């Protein structure tokens, strides 16, 4: 399968009074056609900024993409004009936002919000767009779609709004869907429903998906491949199975160990990662995770470890001690 999206050495910075924040720091990854890729990490590690960079919606003038390439279907998105980029957004790459409660415009009807993209991107007439909107609402499992079209977002529950967001994202049949924490604001039972729906629809419609999340449970079930991000860099990448079974970076291991499990004895303690994520304006010269790392050696504080292959299947890790971790059981 060819690469649909290829991010190469992307650098996105924010200029603040405290200094330059390298939110995304020389990061490369890719998404193959029809594949579901996860971007995992804690808050502030650069996951969302990565997605916004792809859409070229990093809030200026403070935020800027300073380097790298974002190849989508072979074209560099960073080289496109604003006008060309507008045809990519929503039409070829759609985005699902984190907050279903505030991501829909409260004064526009559901029907209007669904048909607007169809009318502007696909040049559909009013009536065909309306029919497609009914079809889309049905597709995402909203009952009685005809009646729902005339309603407003406040008449929808959180889960329904997220379904509506998915319907909006799917409207123009995009090749790639960026889902930024799509289920974080929802309650757990609804989370599962929404994720199943997204997985099912992306498979049926052949759309590739990038799921941005801090929830490893989500990753395990729905992603084909996983990129683990820490302090603006990718520290480990591999298939979801590999990452779970044989993590080769202490940060990934830490994340896995801090998730509660049903098959452990009730009294087992969770092992949180000590310390705080680093200040992105003042990163240590070596590995950014070193201060919090239990496997730290002298070299970690001085040299940034490169991302190197640690096993087959494209499993890479940025850790000097990756070999030592091979013996440590993951999950």
């Amino acid at each position: 399968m060819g690469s649909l999206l290829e991010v190469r050495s992307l650098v996105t910075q924010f200029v603040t009074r405290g200094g330059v924040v390298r939110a995304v720091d020389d990061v490369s990854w890719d998404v193959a056609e029809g594949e579901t890729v996860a971007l995992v990490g804690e808050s502030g590690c650069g996951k969302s900024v990565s997605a916004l960079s792809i859409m070229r919606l990093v809030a200026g003038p403070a935020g800027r993409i300073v380097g790298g390439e974002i190849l989508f279907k072979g074209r560099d998105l960073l080289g496109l004009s604003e006008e060309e980029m507008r045809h990519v957004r929503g039409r070829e790459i759609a985005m699902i936002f984190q907050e279903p409660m505030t991501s829909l415009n409260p004064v526009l009807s559901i029907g209007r919000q669904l048909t607007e993209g169809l009318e502007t991107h696909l040049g559909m007439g009013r009536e065909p767009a309306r029919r497609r909107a009914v079809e889309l609402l049905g597709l995402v499992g909203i009952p009685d779609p005809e009646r729902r079209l005339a309603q407003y977002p406040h008449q929808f529950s959180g889960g329904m709004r997220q379904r509506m967001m998915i319907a909006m994202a799917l409207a123009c049949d995009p090749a790639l869907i960026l889902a930024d924490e799509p289920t974080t604001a929802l309650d757990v039972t609804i989370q599962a429903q929404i994720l199943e729906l997204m997985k099912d629809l992306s498979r049926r419609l052949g759309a590739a998906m990038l799921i941005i999340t801090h929830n490893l449970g989500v990753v395990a079930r729905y992603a084909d491949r996983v990129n683990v991000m820490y302090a603006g860099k990718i520290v480990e990448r591999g298939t979801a199975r590999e990452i779970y079974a044989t993590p080769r970076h202490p940060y990934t291991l830490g994340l896995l160990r801090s998730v509660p499990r049903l098959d452990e004895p009730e009294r087992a303690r969770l092992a949180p990662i000590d310390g705080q994520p680093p200040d992105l304006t003042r990163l240590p010269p070596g590995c950014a995770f070193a201060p919090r790392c239990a496997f730290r050696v002298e070299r970690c504080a001085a040299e940034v470890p490169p991302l190197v292959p640690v096993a087959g299947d494209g499993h890479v890790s940025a850790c000097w001690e990756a070999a030592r971790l091979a013996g440590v059981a993951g999950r």
Partner: protein
Amino acid sequence: MAIERATERLGELDGAPARPWVDAARDFVRRRPLGAVGAAVVLLMLVVALLANLLTPYNPVAVDFAAMLAPPSASHWLGTDAFGRDVLARLIYGSRTALFVGFGAAFFGATVGAVLGVGSAYFGGRVDLYVQRVMDVFLSFPLIILALAIVAILGNNLPNLITAITIPMIPRCALVIRASALSIREMPYIDAARAAGFGHGRIILRHMLPNVMAPYLILLTAFLGQAILLEASLSFLGLGVQEPTAAWGLMLRGAAVEFAEAAPWMAIFPGLAISLAVFAFNLFGDSLRDALDPRLRTQ
């Protein structure tokens, strides 16, 4: 009884009411009687202006030298002026001028101001800075001085009069609308609209403007009163509507001053009409603000 009331409440909760406008209007009358009085006077003015030719047998510009300076009587309810023109007829037809100029100026002023305010908030940064500084320049002049200057430059006919009243209103509206648009700019649904690939114009007009409808409506009603007053003032100063057109400000001028003691009805009634109209619009506008504001905050 309690159960009945509860089921009634349930009925209300189940979807939107069948006639939301009628319900909203009834609610407004019950909670804000003063505002309702204002609204009633405004409505009355509208009806009078529309049906002017049915309400009075007199032609407002027809001169009748046989009935010059006649006091109020059965044939001329509010008397006549120095040219024998019926004061009531001129008042009634004058409401057309007042409402036409008032609505025209208030509508254009509030709308252009709203678009500028929302655009300024949406683009932010340098655009916002420049637009706001230009607005500040206009704001530094009092309403009437600016309007006077514009009429003096453009010359006085009706479209120019409306332009002259519109222009000083634009920055006043832009300022208020920008403030509420700034918070809307930060809402995720605006980012979502950008991510959906919509253009700037569409986002400003279709996604942000409807969200500032409440302050827009409040400003519109407030501007209506101001615009009517401004039109009367300019006409009074001789820079607004010209004779022989019926206009309230015009009726206060010229002969009305000369005969103020001999024929006070010439000045009293148009003066009352201006005060009542402005008062009614302001009452209505204030109540509208109170009615719309809590919703604004909870959004």
